[in-house]
């Protein structure tokens, strides 16, 4: 089990390109996050959870990030928590049959004004 956790963590670090050890725990990422109240784990926690190898918990809860890049822009150390959560999401949706959004769900979600941009970006974020 320990080995699997280590493998997952290494994969997240490689895919994201993030150096979690640069984090100085200032919390500016979570202070900037517009989704903070909606999340089980917050941006500053993404960073130390990955550093600790606690990736499996994040794999179960990662769909509240808006990818607005506020945490990336405002981090004084260039750590980019949003890139970590993106890498974690990808590890989930790249598993066979694990798409978070499936094409047959789309018709029920449409309304007459919904821009194509919303559907295209949701597929990029939630599916492979």
């Amino acid at each position, binding site marked *: 089990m320990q080995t699997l956790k280590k493998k997952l963590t290494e994969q997240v670090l490689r895919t994201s390109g993030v150096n979690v050890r640069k984090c100085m725990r200032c919390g500016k990422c979570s202070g900037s996050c517009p*989704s903070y109240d909606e999340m089980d784990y917050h941006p500053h926690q993404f960073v130390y959870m990955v550093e600790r190898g606690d990736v499996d918990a994040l794999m179960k809860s990662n769909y*509240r990030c*808006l990818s607005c890049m*506020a945490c990336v*822009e405002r981090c004084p150390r260039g750590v980019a928590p949003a890139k970590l959560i993106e890498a974690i999401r990808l590890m989930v949706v790249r598993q066979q049959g694990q798409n978070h959004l499936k094409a047959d769900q789309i018709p029920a979600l449409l309304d007459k*004004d919904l821009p194509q941009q919303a559907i295209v*970006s949701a597929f*990029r*974020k939630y599916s492979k």
Partner: protein
Amino acid sequence: MIFSYYPGCTLKTKAKDLDRYARMSAQVLGITLEELPAWQCCGAVYPMAKDEIVTKLSSVRALMSAKEQGNDLITLCSACHNVIKQVNNDMQNDRDIAGKINNYLNPDVEYHGETNVIHYLEMLRDKVGFDVLAQKVVHPLTGRKIAAYYGCMLLRPASVMQMDNPENPVIMENFIRAIGGDPVIYPYRNECCGGYVTLEDNALVGKNSVKVLASALENGAEMIVTACPLCLYNLGKNNAQHKVPVIYFTELLAEALGIKDRGEEENADA
């Protein structure tokens, strides 16, 4: 001046106003926008992972097509601009990504980010000039209190986008001044509306969008302008309580240039 132009998927469908008024206004300003001959959807969000290659190909094809035409590439939708400019940055600076993409596309001449990607607002500021634009205004929006909504994708990450100061931008406010309006500065103008999460969690997006609308109104806004179809949708959908009009900046531009009626006629014909 001639530029290549990348409209993107939504500008051909739900955001026709953003596109139509931009093209009409460009003509008045002496700008020729040549739509790329065979563009593909950019994917609407920049693929951040280091090992994403295929999802960047459509942007690279657009960039290479502009390079072949010998033109700078104009974008208009915030999402397209963000994706294409960030992918171009990868082609310039990420040897692994650029190497894999060039290997796959196998072009006669490798592409390494030579094309300049310019947002329509940057074209107005840097190529036309806001001072020249101001001289072409025939219906100045005098006394109109207009709030610019940047959202997230025009400005961030600033190290790549390089449009403006990400925390205290002025480009849209200066645009509003150039067309005679009165820009409203408000704290939530560069905070996210909720973006694509609208598809699965209306409540979360509602909270964010209402904060933006309320912040603009508290500071005296009579209307909000944006460059992003998804921002327009999210703000519009959560506008029941505030009822502040949210429109594309290009519609205001066309109004100030005195050609908006023509756009409405074209729309009626379509």
